């Protein structure tokens, strides 16, 4: 794909580069010569001849300088070019203009023509070379008119639109000027005609380009959607492969051990459920996630089911962490001593307090006789809640099951009314 100002369709490589090794000024002539396979001398002579058109040669040279990149690999200059590279062109152009104004009293027709061609070239060049190089390469492979591809560039759309409009204005001004200059009479009609022609021309370009643009745009969009879908599928496949298939294999190997099979199935179901339905929250940051993690650990350790229901959520801190630890201890006690397969865990976050209830329908016990020598209940649950400004109640009776109630006030006013009484 060439780096010439885009006035025609794109050709395929070899690409046009400036050749730093033979360069006099910027390597433009050498690059063009290499590219066309003719001698450098001829190219330079051509530039000199064009110089006769009121410095058109110089203008073109500067434009090439601005637009054509140095050949990569043999220079320390990064391939990315910026507007600064147009400065030499602007400077030289201004110089030529000054010389013309000084040598002739006015700018001649030829000079004007040179100027206008230059403006068109610059406008197109700006549009062309401001698009990202890798995008350009991509369009160059697929689009008949590569710089149109810039329209569908996803990133930085506003900057692009500004550039495109700027370049378009330059091109339009050039075309209108050409029409005005070459119209025979210098009357108003001629100018109007020129403008109309220019507009018609631009409209034509638009009509031709629109379908291509649209097609390319939808192509890019569907590609992106496809990529996202593909990624999701890959994630799901990885999940199934790493976890579910593994678990199924383990279940087959442990088919005779009911407890193990239940634990495997339960753990797998939980992780799959979380993966499908729950936004991931860190147990170190959110209360609900921390409590669910504690429940999951107890489920896995003791092969029971913990029916977890959490209403509301909040950030954790040291006190909320203590509440979670106490709840975990209550779950462990239920798993150890109740002799049932299912324990209910309910937690609710309210504006003034966080409460947790752990209930089982198991053996139960008489709290008065047990608390003296059961460190778990006294230290890990009641004592821990007290230390952090909360309270714990245990309601149990032989044969009635057990409920542990943990209340943690979270406002300064710790006299939160006890609920459900």
């Amino acid at each position, binding site marked *: 794909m060439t780096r010439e100002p885009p006035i025609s369709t794109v050709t395929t490589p070899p690409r046009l580069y400036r050749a730093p090794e033979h360069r006099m000024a910027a390597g433009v002539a050498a690059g063009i010569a290499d590219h066309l396979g003719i001698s450098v001398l001829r190219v330079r002579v051509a530039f000199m001849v064009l110089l006769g058109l009121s410095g058109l040669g110089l203008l073109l040279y500067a434009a090439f300088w601005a637009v054509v990149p140095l050949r990569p690999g043999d220079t320390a200059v990064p391939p990315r070019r910026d507007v600064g590279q147009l400065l030499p062109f602007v400077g030289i152009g201004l110089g030529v203009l000054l010389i013309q104004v000084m040598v002739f009293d006015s700018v001649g027709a030829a000079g004007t023509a040179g100027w206008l061609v230059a403006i068109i070239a610059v406008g197109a060049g700006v549009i062309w070379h401001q698009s990202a190089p890798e995008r350009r390469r991509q369009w160059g492979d697929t689009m008949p008119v590569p710089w149109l591809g810039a329209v569908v560039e996803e990133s930085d759309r506003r900057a692009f639109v500004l550039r495109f409009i700027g370049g378009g204005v330059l091109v339009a001004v050039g075309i209108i000027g050409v029409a005005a200059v070459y119209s025979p009479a210098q009357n108003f009609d001629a100018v109007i005609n020129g403008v109309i022609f220019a507009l018609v021309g631009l409209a034509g370009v638009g009509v031709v380009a629109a379908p291509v643009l649209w097609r390319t745009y939808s192509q890019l969009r569907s590609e992106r959607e496809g990529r996202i879908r593909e990624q999701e599928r890959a994630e799901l496949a990885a999940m199934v492969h790493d976890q579910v298939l593994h678990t199924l294999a383990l279940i087959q190997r442990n088919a005779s051990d009911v407890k193990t099979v239940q634990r495997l199935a339960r753990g797998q*179901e939980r992780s799959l*459920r979380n993966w*499908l*339905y729950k936004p991931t929250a860190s147990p170190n940051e959110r209360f609900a996630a921390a409590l669910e993690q504690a429940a999951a650990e107890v489920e896995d350790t003791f092969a029971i*089911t913990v*029916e977890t*229901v*959490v*209403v*509301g959520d909040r950030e954790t801190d040291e006190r909320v962490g203590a509440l979670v630890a106490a709840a975990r201890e209550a779950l462990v006690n239920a798993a150890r001593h109740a002799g049932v397969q*299912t324990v*209910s865990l*309910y937690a*609710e976050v309210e504006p003034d307090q966080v409460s947790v*209830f752990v*209930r089982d*329908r198991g053996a139960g016990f008489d709290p008065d006789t047990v608390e003296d020598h059961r460190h778990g209940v006294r230290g890990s649950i009641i004592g821990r809640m007290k230390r952090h400004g909360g309270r714990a109640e245990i309601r149990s009776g032989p044969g009635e099951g057990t*409920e542990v109630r943990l209340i943690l006030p979270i406002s300064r006013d710790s006299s939160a009314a006890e*609920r*459900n009484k």
Partner: protein
Amino acid sequence: MSEQPAEHLDPANTRPERLRVFLVDDHAMFRAGVRAELGAHVEVVGEASTVAEAVTRIAAVGPDVVLLDVHMPDGGGRAVLEAMRRSHPQVKFLALSVSDAAEDVIGLIRAGARGYVTKTISPDELAAAIRRVADGDAVFSPRLAGFVLDAFAARPDAPVADPELDQLTNREREVLRLLARGYAYKEIAKELFISIKTVETHVSNVLRKLQMSNRYELSRWAADRRLV
């Protein structure tokens, strides 16, 4: 699902005739399992694996209770509910699902199901839940109670259009909390010093509010049903 109370676990209690139950689920294995488990308690009068099949067969058989899977091809349980509700108001629906995403649960209840249990429920509890739905009551698993409390949580930015429907009373809230804590109706009645009948009334009122309310959270959940 451990919320079912002992007093409801006797399937041969109130009715002499056996309940007629219809299964809608696209997993044949699961249907066979439920059929085997429920055989002692109820009469399974039919099965269907697609929405279209379910609609025609339920209309032909006229069961008391339909056990309905949420996630099926071509619209899931909701499609069956929406097709049947107007024409067969006497058929009660109990949703049964492996999914417990809030939007699934709330969406199905709003579409007319009278309860929601997950597929891990024990056979006895499932039989009790079917019985309760057939009697015109609602079945609130602890998880569903939690979702409802969440949906009706007092959010400062949620405008209340209809206080009658868009808010829970304190009593209803207390009943839901106890349900979420795993209490049976009898235990709730004892805890709140009210009769079991009153507990049932509160639960039915909550179900009605859940189905009628236009609260933003509920509408959103009903509208956002994710199809997995």
